[in-house]
């Protein structure tokens, strides 16, 4: 029996360090392309690390038409680009919809960091008089969904959920709740973050940035690589998608959110909160652990995250954990912060429709504490009817989102 009130993904838009647009992104993911290189957007000579995953050749003028691209920050530009690409991919013409029932929900870690960075440059140079009126209208993070809404003329809810590195999942979860409650007809949900000096400085100071390569779950992994990007999923109820003949990638199942309430930057040592989030997601989705075909890991590549994440997966799935492939696309994209779990949700949606799962790249030798099937180095054909997307953030925020194949 078809559940026509299921929330479905009908469009995918992404701007990432390995490609822009669904097809380019997926092809790069399957080929194991790397988005890493020396940081270009600011001078890292006084840092001990220099690796980043920046997006080269992004031209906002290709996507921002209603607003003047020079008056909005890079995160807003990336979010708008991803939104337009999702609408195009989903063949949705907004002119034919009631825009009061179309909304946007974005997750982020930093919002528009460049504006506070410029403010600070003026501040330390004793030139605060150079801070203009645009600081307040361009900096606070709520401007990101606001700019998407202004660009596209959306008059439903324009929401920002800044739950850092788990934010994409939160945004998709909230959007799916609004749709199920029939408060809205369409939602663009995802995440966006632009490369930030502040973020880079912080992670470098924590010793969390890998000096040469990001290799999640590998025995010799040394850290994560900060990146930037944006992804938006076009979401609607299945009955509407069917009525307008839209292509359906997959369904959004249930989700689980929890808080470790333990430490600001380190996960709970027994993976307690992450386990609860996974279990909640499975229960809410009505999916048993044995039905999960693929897990998109948070997999940042830091020694601690990957070890604790593995513990949490084993706690949730027991012996089944050894049979479920689990990969981290951060091995190719780096850590795109608030965009990460949205990009990873998109990858899950594509894994379901394409019947292939992305690899964990740069995996060379096994860590005895990370002994699951991480799909090392080569993408793999795999029928995926149920995917689980996990993401964790500072503040002990844990999230798990279930995506399932379109039920006929």
């Amino acid at each position, binding site marked *: 029996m078809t559940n026509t009130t299921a929330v479905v993904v009908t469009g995918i838009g992404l701007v990432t360090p390995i490609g822009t647009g669904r097809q380019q992104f997926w092809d790069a993911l399957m080929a194991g392309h790397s988005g890493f290189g020396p940081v270009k957007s600011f001078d890292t000579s006084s840092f001990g690390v220099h690796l980043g995953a920046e997006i080269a050749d992004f031209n906002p003028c290709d996507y921002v038409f209603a607003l003047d691209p020079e008056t909005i920050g890079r995160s807003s530009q990336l979010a708008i680009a991803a939104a337009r690409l999702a609408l195009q991919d989903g063949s949705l013409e907004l002119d034919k919809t009631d825009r009061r029932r179309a909304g946007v929900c974005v997750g982020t870690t930093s919002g528009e960091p460049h504006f506070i960075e410029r403010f600070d440059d003026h501040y330390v140079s004793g030139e605060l008089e150079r801070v203009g009126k645009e600081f307040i209208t361009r900096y606070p993070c709520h401007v990101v969904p606001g700019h998407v809404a202004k660009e596209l003329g959306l008059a439903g809810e324009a929401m920002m959920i800044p739950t850092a590195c788990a934010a994409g999942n939160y945004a998709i979860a909230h959007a799916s709740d609004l749709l199920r409650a029939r408060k809205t007809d369409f939602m663009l949900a995802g995440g966006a973050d632009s490369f930030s000096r502040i973020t880079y400085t912080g992670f470098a100071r924590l010793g969390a940035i890998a000096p040469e390569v990001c290799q999640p779950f590998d025995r010799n992994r040394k850290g994560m690589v900060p990146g930037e990007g944006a992804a938006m999923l076009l979401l609607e109820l299945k009955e509407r998608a069917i009525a307008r003949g839209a292509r359906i990638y997959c369904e959004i199942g249930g989700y689980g959110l929890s808080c470790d309430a333990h430490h600001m930057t*380190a996960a709970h040592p027994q993976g307690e909160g992450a386990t609860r989030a996974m279990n909640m997601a499975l229960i809410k989705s009505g999916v048993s652990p044995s039905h999960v075909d693929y897990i998109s890991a948070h997999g940042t590549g830091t020694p601690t995250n990957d070890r604790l994440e593995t513990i949490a997966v084993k706690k949730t799935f027991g012996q089944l954990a050894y049979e479920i492939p689990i990969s981290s696309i951060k091995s190719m994209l780096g850590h795109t912060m608030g965009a990460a779990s949205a990009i990873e949700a998109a990858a899950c949606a594509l894994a379901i429709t394409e019947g292939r799962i992305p690899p964990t790249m740069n995996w060379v030798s096994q860590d005895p504490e990370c002994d699951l099937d991480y799909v090392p180095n080569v993408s793999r054909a795999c029928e995926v009817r149920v995917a689980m997307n996990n993401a964790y953030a500072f503040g002990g925020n844990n999230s798990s989102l279930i995506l399932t194949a379109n039920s006929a």
Partner: protein
Amino acid sequence: MMDTQSIKTTIKQSISRVTGIPAETISDSASYEGDLGLDSLSILEIAVDVENHFKFQASDEELTSIRTVEETVDLVRRRLCAEVA
């Protein structure tokens, strides 16, 4: 070159700034986790505060290896000698 007692005092002042524990109650042999009950973020904050005060940069390995007040004093002495030499 600074004497050991001054280094200890400075380090204990750092610890006090970060933790609120009065400097004079911190014993020379106190361990950060066991005796002072500090988490990893607090320990790193103390280490960076100490580095900033004495103007040296420890490696990541050195930073993650200091577990007691004494070990921190030794690190500073080693680094101050190294900078001078």
